[in-house]
């Protein structure tokens, strides 16, 4: 169960999750889990008291260190903080893992 895997977490504006999944597949990410969330930041946007533009998608995937770095480069380049996707991603170290085949897979469309 010991490994050099990373848990890659991507926070992105809602609606861009599928595009990010497609882009990361090309660098070897096999699968991910997406969940919905509400963002809260320093700049609170609201119209007539209704909060707008805070819906986010969280993407969680477990990948090896090299693939995680490749995925982060792709995300930064195509969906970075200056793009409409406004994504932020980070990795967390993984101690132990079960249920995953750790051989990297290169996506072929």
């Amino acid at each position, binding site marked *: *169960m010991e490994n050099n895997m990373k848990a890659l977490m991507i926070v992105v504006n809602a609606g861009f999750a599928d595009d990010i999944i497609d882009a990361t597949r090309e660098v070897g990410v096999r*699968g*991910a889990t997406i969940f919905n969330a509400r963002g809260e930041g320093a700049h609170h946007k609201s119209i007539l008291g209704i909060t707008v533009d805070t819906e986010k998608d969280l993407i969680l995937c477990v990948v090896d260190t090299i693939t995680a770095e490749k995925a982060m480069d792709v995300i930064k380049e195509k969906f970075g903080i200056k793009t409409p996707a406004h994504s932020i991603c980070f990795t967390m170290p993984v101690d132990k893992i*079960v249920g995953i085949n750790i051989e990297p897979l290169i996506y072929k469309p």
Partner: protein
Amino acid sequence: MMINETDNKISFLTIITGRNKKDALLTALLDSDIHLINTIYGKGTVKANFLRNALGLVPEENKVVITCISTCVKNEIVLRMLEEKFGFNKPNTGIAFTAPIDKVSY
């Protein structure tokens, strides 16, 4: 109260599997004396058949993400239980991993 890393190493356990296993998993976790459990629904990235998707026959959030904070020893027992009881060592059943945590305050 604060638990330091040196007192008893703790880690953050994340389990991702199908929603149909949620109840059984929660029962098993509680039986294993694991607490601080959170459940989130999510969706996988496997593309479903186009027609089923168009007809709305594919459940939107078909995955469950269960997270909990516990000691490394307990988490290791849970990981073993997931392999033996829930078949996580077989493909397409689920994954689980632990990430280290420095400190917990409660």
